[in-house]
C-alpha cells in the first residue's frame, strides 16, 4: 500500500493541471495532461514562434509538454499527407467560399487537455493563413470559462467570429448564428455522412437546418485490467446487466473492486447516472420535453444501481472527476468508466509500473443492458459562426478547411481518441485500429443518446447536469438514504423547474 500511495501521489502531481475544476461536461474523461517536470523543460522542436504568439499563462506552463505529441510526429507536413489518404471521400462538387477582402478571424475554443489538440489546431490555422492570407487568432479558454464567454459574445454581438462551443450552445444562440446547412451538406456528402450525435447537436432542433459544425466529441467507455478480469474467469465484460453485476461482484471478491463516482463529479458521475438510466430504457424527458423520469424503468435503474454500488470500492460518493483515474493508476480499482486520457497518461508515463499497467489495460463499449445501442453519450464541440462577424465567408472557409481530411486527419489521429470524429469517413483512419485499445472511442458520436435524452436540446439539460439532479437521485438510493420512488419523484420535481422555464 505504501508503494501504491506514493505512486498515486506522483501520478497526481505530474499529470494534472489543477484538482477538481471540471465544469464543462466530458463524460467519464479527465483533464489530465501527461507531462513531467522533465519534459516541460524541453524545447518544442517546431512551430514554436507560432505557439508562442498567443499563449495564456497556463498554456505557457505546459507548453513544453507539446514535445510529447511532437515525439511521435517529427514531421508534421510529411505525416499530414500520409494520414489524409486513409480517409475515403465521395466525389462531390467542391465548395468554395468567396473570402472577403482583408478578412481576419478570431476563434474561441476550449483549452486542450492533451497537447496535440492545440498543436495541430494551431498548425492547421497557420496553414489556412498561408493559403488564404487570412490571419487567424485562436484563443484557448479554460472549460469552465467557455460557456460564460460564449454568452458574452452572443449578448454583446462583439468579439470572436467563430466560437467552438459546447453541446447545447448552438441551440441557445440559434438566432444569433449563421446557417451552416451548405457546409454541413457538403461535408456530410464528401465524408460518408454525419453520426447521429452530430445531427442532434449540429441542426436546429426539430429542423433540417444546420446551425453549427460539430468538430468532435469525447466519450468514456469501460476501462479495465485484463489480467484481473481473467483472474475471475472473463475475457470480456458481459453486455447485460446481470452479467455486469456478476463480474463486479467477482472482482470485488477477488480483492479488485471496481469504482465509479456517484459524488459531485461533473463529468464522471453524470455520465454514470446517464448510463444507468439509458441502459434501463429510462429517460429524463420524452420527445416533447416533458419530464419522464418518474417511471418504472427509472426505479429498475435505481434498484440496479443499489446492487452495483455494493460491489464498488468504498468512498465513491466522495469521488471527484480525477478520483477514478487516481484509484486506477494506484491499482486500487480494476474497472471504471473513463475517457482515453487515463490510458494516454499511464501509457506515456516514465514510470515502468504504469507502463506495464497500460499494457494490461483494455477498453470496451459500455454494457447495453436493455438498450439496443450503447447507452452512452459524448461531449461534442460545435463551431458556430456568429452573425456579427464581418467575414462570414472567411469563417465558413476556415471551418471547412479544418474539417477537410488534409487537416482534420492529422489533428484527429494525434488526439488518439480524445476527440472522435462526427463524420463517418474518419472512422476508417488507421490509428483507430493500429492500437486496438482505441476501438471503443472510434464510434463515440455514433449514438442516439445526449444530455436530456429524449427531449429537445435546451439549456435545461445543462442545468440538470450541473445541479447533479440525476446523480443525487442515484446516490441517495444506492446508499439507502432514500426510497427509489421518492427519489425519482424528487428528481423529477427538480428537473421540472428547469425544463418548464426553458
Amino acid at each position, binding site marked *: *500500500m*505504501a508503494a501504491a*500511495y506514493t505512486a*498515486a*501521489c506522483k501520478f497526481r502531481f505530474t499529470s494534472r493541471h489543477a*484538482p*477538481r475544476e471540471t*465544469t464543462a461536461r466530458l463524460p467519464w474523461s479527465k483533464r489530465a495532461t501527461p507531462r513531467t517536470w522533465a519534459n516541460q523543460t524541453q524545447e518544442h522542436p517546431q512551430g514554436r514562434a507560432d505557439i508562442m504568439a498567443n499563449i495564456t499563462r497556463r498554456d505557457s506552463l505546459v507548453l513544453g509538454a507539446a514535445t510529447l505529441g511532437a515525439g511521435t510526429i517529427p514531421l508534421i507536413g510529411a505525416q499530414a499527407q500520409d494520414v489524409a489518404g486513409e480517409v475515403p471521400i465521395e466525389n462531390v462538387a467542391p465548395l468554395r467560399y468567396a473570402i472577403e477582402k482583408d478578412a481576419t478571424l478570431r476563434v474561441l475554443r476550449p483549452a486542450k487537455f492533451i497537447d496535440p489538440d492545440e498543436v495541430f489546431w494551431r498548425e492547421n490555422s497557420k496553414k489556412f493563413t498561408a493559403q488564404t492570407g487570412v490571419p487567424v487568432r485562436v484563443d484557448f479558454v479554460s472549460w*469552465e470559462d467557455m*460557456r*460564460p464567454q*460564449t*454568452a458574452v459574445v*452572443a*449578448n454583446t454581438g462583439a468579439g470572436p467570429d467563430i466560437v467552438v462551443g459546447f453541446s447545447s450552445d448552438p441551440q*441557445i*444562440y440559434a438566432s444569433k448564428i449563421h446557417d451552416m446547412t451548405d457546409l454541413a451538406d457538403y461535408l456530410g456528402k464528401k465524408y460518408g455522412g454525419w453520426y447521429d450525435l452530430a445531427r442532434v447537436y449540429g441542426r436546429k432542433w426539430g429542423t433540417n437546418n444546420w446551425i453549427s459544425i460539430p468538430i468532435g466529441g469525447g466519450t468514456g467507455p469501460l476501462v479495465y485490467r485484463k489480467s484481473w478480469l481473467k483472474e475471475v474467469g472473463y475475457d470480456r465484460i458481459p453486455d447485460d446487466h446481470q452479467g455486469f453485476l456478476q463480474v463486479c461482484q467477482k472482482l470485488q471478491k477477488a480483492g479488485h473492486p471496481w469504482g465509479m463516482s*456517484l*459524488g*459531485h*463529479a*461533473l463529468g464522471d458521475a453524470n455520465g454514470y447516472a446517464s448510463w444507468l438510466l439509458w441502459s434501463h430504457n429510462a429517460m429524463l424527458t420524452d420527445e416533447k420535453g416533458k419530464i419522464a423520469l418518474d417511471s418504472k424503468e427509472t426505479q429498475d435503474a435505481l434498484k440496479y444501481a443499489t446492487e452495483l454500488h455494493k460491489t464498488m*470500492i*468504498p*468512498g*465513491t*460518493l*466522495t*469521488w*471527484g472527476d480525477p*478520483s477514478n483515474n*487516481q*484509484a486506477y493508476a*494506484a491499482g*486500487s480499482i480494476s474497472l471504471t468508466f473513463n475517457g482515453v486520457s487515463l490510458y494516454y497518461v499511464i501509457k506515456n508515463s516514465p514510470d515502468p509500473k504504469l507502463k506495464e499497467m497500460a499494457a494490461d489495460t483494455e477498453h470496451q463499449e459500455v454494457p447495453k443492458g436493455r438498450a439496443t445501442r450503447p447507452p452512452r453519450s459524448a461531449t461534442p464541440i460545435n463551431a458556430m459562426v456568429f452573425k456579427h462577424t464581418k467575414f462570414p465567408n472567411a469563417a465558413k472557409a476556415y471551418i471547412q478547411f479544418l474539417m477537410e481530411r488534409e487537416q482534420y486527419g492529422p489533428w484527429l489521429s494525434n488526439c488518439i481518441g480524445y476527440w472522435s470524429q462526427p463524420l463517418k469517413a474518419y472512422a476508417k483512419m488507421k490509428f483507430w485500429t493500429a492500437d486496438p485499445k482505441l476501438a471503443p472511442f472510434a464510434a463515440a458520436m455514433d449514438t442516439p443518446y445526449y444530455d436530456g435524452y429524449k427531449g429537445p436540446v435546451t*439549456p435545461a439539460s*445543462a*442545468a440538470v447536469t*450541473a*445541479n*447533479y439532479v440525476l*446523480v*443525487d437521485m442515484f*446516490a*441517495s438510493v444506492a*446508499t439507502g*438514504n432514500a426510497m427509489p420512488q421518492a427519489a425519482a419523484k*424528487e428528481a423529477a420535481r*427538480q428537473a421540472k*423547474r*428547469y425544463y418548464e*422555464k426553458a
Partner: protein
Amino acid sequence: MDATVYPLTITRKPDSWLARLFDNKSFLAFLCMLPTAGLLLVFLTYPLGLGLWLAMTDTTIGERGKFIGLENFESLWDDPVFWLSVFNTLFYTIVATAGKFLLGLWLALLLNNHFPFKAFIRAIVLLPWIVPTVLSAIAWWWIYSPQFSIVSYIFVDVLHWSDRYFDFIGTPWPARWSLIVANVWRAIPFVAITLLAGLQTISPSLYEAALLDGASPFQQFRRITLPLLMPILSVVMTLSVLFTFSDFQLVYAITRGGPFNTTHLMATLAFQRAIPGSQLGEGAAIAVAMIPFLIAATLLSYFGLGRRKWQQGEAND
C-alpha cells in the same frame, strides 16, 4: 522715539462664492467623502443592487431575463435542497464558530505566556491562515480521500489499529464534521492572533493586584481577562461568523456539496445553480436569501456580545 503707528488695515476682497463654498465645513466633508462613496457605490451598492434585481428575474447565462417578482423565492421555499443548505449553513456556522473560538482563545492564552522562541512560534501559528484557502482545501481533500488518506494510511497500514480506511466525506454527518474540522483549523490563527493582541493590552498590574488579593487563575480569567477582552472578542466574533457563514472555497474544493447535497452551504448552492447551472436568477435569489441571516448574525454580535462594554464604554455595569 517717534513711533509711527500705521493703521493696520486689511483689505479683503469679498469672498467669491466658490471660496465660501469651500469654507463650508459640511460641504468640504461631503467633498472629501465623495471618492469613497463613489468606490462604495460602484463596487458594493451596484453589485448588491444587481444581485437583488437578478433575484427577481429569470435571467440565465445567455439570456436576459424578465422580471418575475418573488417567484424565485417561492420556488426556493418549496425546494428541500435549499432548506437543506440553510440547515447546513447554520449548523456549520454555529459549530465551527464555537470551535474556533474555544480553541483560538485557548491558543491565545498559551501564546500570551513567556516561553522560548516566542516570536517564532507566534509566526508559525499563522501559517494555516496565510496559505491560500484553496491550497489548504486541496490538502484536506487528500487527507479525507477514501483511498489515499494519510490518516487512514497511518491507522491502517502503519499502526494496524483498524482494517478499513476511514470514509471521512462519503456519508452525510461525518462529511459535515470533517468540513467543520478543516474550517476550524483554518480560522484558529486568525482568532488566536487577534485575541492575543487584545490580551497584550491588558495591564499586568491588574493581575498583580488580583494575585495579592488571592485570586485563583480561573478567577483572574473570569474577572479580568474575559471582561477586558470582550470588545475585541465581539468584533472578531462578528467577522468570524460572517466569514464562516459565507464560506465557499473549502466546501467547494472538498465535497462540492456532496454526498447528495448534504454538505451544500448556501454560498456553494448559489454558485452551483447560477454559474455551472446557468440559472443566474435562482442563484442570485439564494445569495440574497443569505442577507437576512448575515444581518441577524451581525446584529446579534454587535448588540448581544458587545453591548455594555463595547457599545457604551467601560464603567457601565
